[in-house]
C-alpha cells in the first residue's frame, strides 16, 4: 500500500467516524437492539472481500478460507437484515393514533 492510498483511506476512516458518531448518537435507546443487528448486517459487507478471495482461484487455502468467509458474511447479511426487519415491524404506536392513518 502506498502512503497516498493510506492517507486517502485514513481520510475515509476519519470522515466515516465523525459521520457515524453523528448518525448513531441520534438512535434512541428504544432502537438499540435493531441498531446492533443492522450494523452487524452492514459490516457483512466484508462479503465483497471474501467473494473475490473465494472466486479468484489463488490457491486452495485461500479458496477454502474465502468460501468459509462467504458463508459467515452472508449469514450475517441475510440474518441481520431479516431480524432487523422483524424487530422494526414490531414497533407500533398506540392503536388510537394508528386508526387515524
Amino acid at each position, binding site marked *: *500500500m502506498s502512503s497516498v*492510498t493510506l492517507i486517502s483511506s485514513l481520510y*475515509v*476512516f476519519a470522515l*466515516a*467516524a465523525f459521520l*457515524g458518531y453523528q*448518525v*448513531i448518537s*441520534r*438512535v*434512541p*435507546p*428504544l*432502537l438499540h*437492539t*435493531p*441498531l446492533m*443487528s*443492522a*450494523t*452487524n448486517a*452492514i*459490516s*457483512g*459487507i*466484508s462479503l*465483497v*472481500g*471474501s*467473494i*473475490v478471495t*473465494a*472466486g*479468484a*482461484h*489463488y490457491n486452495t487455502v*485461500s479458496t477454502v*478460507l474465502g468460501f468459509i*468467509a*462467504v*458463508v*459467515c*458474511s*452472508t*449469514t450475517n447479511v*441475510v*440474518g*441481520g*437484515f*431479516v431480524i*432487523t*426487519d*422483524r*424487530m*422494526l415491524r*414490531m*414497533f*407500533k*404506536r398506540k392503536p388510537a393514533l394508528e386508526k387515524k392513518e
Partner: protein
Amino acid sequence: MQTYFIEISYLLASVLFILGLKGLSHPETAKRGMHLAEFGMLMAIIGTLMHHEIVTFTWIITGLVIGSLVGLAMGVWVPMTAMPQRTALSHAFGAFAAALVGISEYYRLGGHLDKITMGALGFEVMLGALTTTGSLLAFAKLQGMVRGTPLTFKGQNIFNMLLLATTIGIFIYLVVVPGSMPLFFAMVGLALVFGLLLVMPIGAADMPVVMSLLNSYAGLASAATGFVLSNNVLIIAGTLDGFSGFILSVLMCRAMNRSITNVLFGAFGSAAAATGELEGQHGSMREVNLDDVAVQLAYAKQVVFVPGYGMATAQAQHAVKGLADTLEKRGVTVKYGIHPVAGRMPGHMNVLLAEANVPYSSLYELEQINPEFPATDVAIVIGANDVVNPDARDNPSSPIAGMPIIEVDHAKSVVVLKRGQGKGFSGLENPLFFKDVTGMLYGDAKESLTRLMQAVQQS
C-alpha cells in the same frame, strides 16, 4: 468500465448504508431506511461479482446460498428472548470472516507485504480472532452453557496483560519482518486465546457492555479489512459498525456508572457477592398476596411496569401486556420504565415488549419515568434487581454506587415479582425488598401476571 461500475456500486452502497442508519433515529423511518441499506448491499454484491479477478463462481454461489439459508433460518426462527445470543453469534461470524480474509491475504502474498499493509492486516486478524472467540464465549454464557458468574483466577489481570503484550509484540515484529509465517499464526493463536480470557471474567449482568464492545471490535476488524484491500465501502461500513458499538458501550457504562476498565477487569459479581454477605440486611421482606395486589391495581390511577432480565427468562412479556390491557380498559394509565442496562443487551427490554405488541409510546426512559413515581400508585418490578436497587443512590460504599436507577421506591406502592428469596443475577442484596412501601409477590412472573389479570377482570 467494469471497475467503474464496481466502484459506483460501492459508493452507492456507502451512501445507502449511512441513510439506512439515519433512518434508525425513529421507528417510523427505520423500516424504509433499512430497505435502502439492503438495496445498497445487494448492489455492492452484484458489483463485486463482476470483479475481473474472479475465475470460478462455484464456491461463491455455494457460499452465498448456504449463508442465505442459515441466515434466513436464524432470522425467522430465533425468538426475541434469544436476541442477545443471536447477536453474539453474529459478532462471531462477522469477526471470523474478517480474520479469514486477512489470513488468506497473508498466505496468498506469502508474507511479502509492505509495512503499512502488514499493519492493517495484523489489526484485522488480531481483532477478528479475539472477537470470534470472545463472542462465542459470550454466546455460551448467555445461552447458559457456561455459568454466568465471572470465572476468575489469581493474577488473572496480569496474565491477560502479559498475553496481550506478547501478542502486540509479535505484531510489531511482524510489521518490521512480515515474512515470518509461523509467528503470524502464533499471533493469531494468541489472539484467539485472549478473546476467551477477556470475556471469561465478565458477569452476566455486565453483558450489555461486552456485547456492545464486541459489536465494535467486529466492525473495526471489517474496517481494517477495508484498509488492507483498499476498499472504501468496507472502511465506511466497518467504521460505522465500530463506532456504533463504541457509542453503545460508553452509554452502557455511563448507565452503570462504572468505567470500562472496571467492567472488563473488575470481575464484578464475584467481589460484590462477598461484600453483600458481610453487610447483611436488616428487617424483613413483606409478602403480599395476589388478590390484594389485584385490588390495588384495579383502583389505581397510574401503574408503572419495570421489567428486567427476569421477565425475559420467564417469557412474561405477553402476560404483562395482558394485564396492562385489562388495566387500561378500566381507565388506568399504564407506563413502562426501561433502564438502559436492563436485560442482557442494549434495547433488550424494548424489543421484548414490542414483540408483545406494547406500543412504543408507552415505553419510557429512565429520566422520563423517574419524576412520575410520586404520582404512581403501583410500581410493578418484574425480574429486575440492580436497576431498581436504592443502594446505588443512597449507599456510597455499595459496588453499584452512583449508578442511575429507576426510582420505584418513590412510588406510593411497590410490588416485586420474584421467583424466590434469592439474590438475583449479580448477587447483591437489595434494600428495596425490605422497605415498607414494597410487597413481594413470589412465584413465576408469567403465572403471577396472568392470575393478576384474571383477578382484576373480576374486580
